[in-house]
């Protein structure tokens, strides 16, 4: 069996041309993972540039309103640039720099990973090109402009459904052609080995902090962790440091779009079958012939037909559970958190809030839920206004 397996999932199903680049990357990562100087630099920039540790905030008004378990929010939205994505891009750009690469490329859905990549590329003086589905370019014009301000080129991808999955295809193809001088800065715990492991490790700072913070605040571990899952990097980042804590339940929340029984959703773990996508084995939304299906979500960041292989493993082993909430439920949660706590969440994170909204009232008041507030919602206000029929 190949490297980078989570049970039967993961691996590296890639064209032969990418093998040398992936081997080089895996070797470099194995080396620097253990390198004290590298880790110190990573921690330094997380503190001084990203602004970590971010708070684990007790959402008192939301808790009261829902009338059940205590809800804590892990405030990834307070990171520099407003989302958890930068934890990973910072780690990878430090690695790219050590490997002597001068160009970075990345795919993006909502634009958060694109912005986070353009940010660190600017900071380290690297050429940066972002691959983004044409439909997402349209939906996320603010982030497109931010990327350009940061000096990145944005390549609009019109193939297929012109969303995240096509952007990943295009970025991989570009990398096949240019792997010698280009670093592919993948934005989630997906793709061929070593990405799912490497991205998880960089994102694990979320769960490591949350674990310490909740022990200080409550002197006990939480009962539930809740995070939204597209590719699944913010979720695995929160979950992973708690995996050995058996009583802690974990729930990943997928995008049910217009409903999991319609053909417009992105609920991969709820409705998918085992398959291969973007170089890894996992659950995949596909038709009877194994063709990748078009997906839909109100949130561009969850609009993805695959899911990180470790999530497939956690699902099948029963260690984590996966639920799906609809566009409408996410939209309501978006408004709920804005009004109850003065925090405008990203539409992606609103899916996690929406599930907490369902779960909290069923639990006792001394129980604790940690919700990963993976990003802020400024980028979404135009599309939310549109959905609510408000003209800005």
């Amino acid at each position, binding site marked *: 069996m190949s490297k980078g397996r989570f049970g039967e999932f993961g*691996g590296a199903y*890639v064209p032969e041309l990418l*093998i040398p680049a992936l081997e080089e990357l895996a070797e470099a990562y194995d080396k620097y993972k253990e390198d004290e100087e590298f880790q110190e630099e990573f921690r330094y920039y997380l503190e001084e540039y990203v602004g970590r540790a971010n708070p684990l905030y007790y959402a008192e008004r939301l808790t009261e309103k829902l009338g059940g378990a205590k809800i804590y929010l892990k405030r990834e939205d307070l990171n520099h640039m407003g989302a958890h994505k930068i934890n990973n891009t910072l780690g990878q750009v430090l690695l790219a720099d050590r490997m002597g690469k001068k160009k970075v490329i990345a795919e993006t859905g909502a634009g958060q990973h694109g912005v986070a990549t353009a940010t660190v590329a600017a900071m380290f003086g690297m050429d940066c090109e972002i691959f983004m589905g044409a439909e997402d370019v349209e939906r996320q014009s603010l982030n497109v402009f931010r990327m350009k301000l940061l000096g990145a080129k944005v390549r609009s991808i019109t193939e297929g459904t012109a969303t995240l999955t096509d952007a990943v295809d295009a970025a991989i193809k570009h990398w096949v052609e240019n792997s010698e001088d280009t670093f592919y800065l993948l934005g989630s715990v997906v793709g061929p080995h070593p990405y799912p492991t490497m991205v998880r490790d960089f994102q694990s700072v979320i769960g490591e902090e949350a674990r310490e913070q909740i022990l200080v605040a409550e002197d006990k571990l939480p009962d539930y962790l809740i995070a939204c899952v597209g590719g699944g990097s913010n979720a695995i980042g929160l979950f992973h440091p708690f995996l050995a804590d058996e009583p802690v339940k974990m729930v990943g929340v997928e995008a049910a779009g217009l409903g999991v029984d319609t053909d417009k959703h992105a609920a991969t773990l709820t409705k998918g079958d085992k398959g291969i996508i*973007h170089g890894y084995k996992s659950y*995949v939304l596909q038709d009877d012939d194994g063709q990748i299906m078009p997906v839909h979500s109100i949130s561009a960041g969850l609009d993805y037909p695959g899911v990180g292989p470790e999530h497939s493993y956690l699902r099948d082993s029963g260690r984590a559970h996966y639920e799906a909430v609809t566009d409408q439920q996410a939209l309501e949660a978006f408004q709920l958190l804005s009004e109850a706590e003065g925090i405008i969440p990203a539409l992606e994170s609103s899916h996690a809030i929406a599930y907490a909204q369902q779960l909290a009232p069923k639990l006792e008041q001394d129980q604790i839920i940690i919700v990963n507030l993976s990003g802020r919602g400024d980028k979404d206000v135009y599309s939310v206004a549109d959905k609510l029929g408000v003209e800005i």
Partner: protein
Amino acid sequence: MGRIEDTFTKLQQRNEKALIPFLMAGDPNLELTKELVLAAEENGADLLELGIPYSAPLADGPTIQQAAQRSLAHGTNLTAIFKLVEEIRQESELPLILMGYYNSIFNFGLEEFVKQCAEVGVDGVIIPDLPPEEGAELQELSTELDIILLLTSISNQTRIEKVTNLSSGFIYAVSTPGVTGAKEELSTEIEKTVTKIKQFKDIPVAVGFGISSPTHAQQIGEFADGIIVGSAIIKKLEKSLDLLEEDEEKLIAKVSDFISSLKKPLT
């Protein structure tokens, strides 16, 4: 001896190089694919690759990707492709190789895939996103079926030896870093890899990716045992698609003429 090995042996005896055209099964429909395969054989194809259309083809450029889209538009799947091969086999002994992405095969079921290949007469399979590390299960099942693996101009000696040991039928050498697609200028950088493979093991090596003209065919024919041409042939087909309704024979002739022009420098 299988059809693939047999064919390369015979060509070697005649001091000829193999022409391996690629056609996307079902582009634009399966009936025409069958006619094109038979016409290709008549016009110099020594072996033939049949593409299994896939929605997210990681190793393919726009030409083959669009051919796949045309085929998928009317639901071509592996079941239909096996039926096509069965029909072709009633009229031809041309070695046939399926080229497709692993998810199509995984989804179909590996055992069932290998069984069907044997039943209808598929000789080999090329799966560009299944490197040997991930292919053990299929390797074990495929006692008759040749699994043709790929090497590139950036493969190192360790890799060359590993892949060559596991590949059967022939080695597919990728001419230039990138995805499939016809190129104006072709690099012959791959010659070094071909030489290294040959030094390591006596196995046929065919070169593909970017080959688009008789001149390229000649250049590659100097050092390789065969050439694989996909996108350039599909482009010819694409350009003549408006003939599909009114004059199918003319359409087939345009494609076959090109195939025939590619074979000339190889004999």
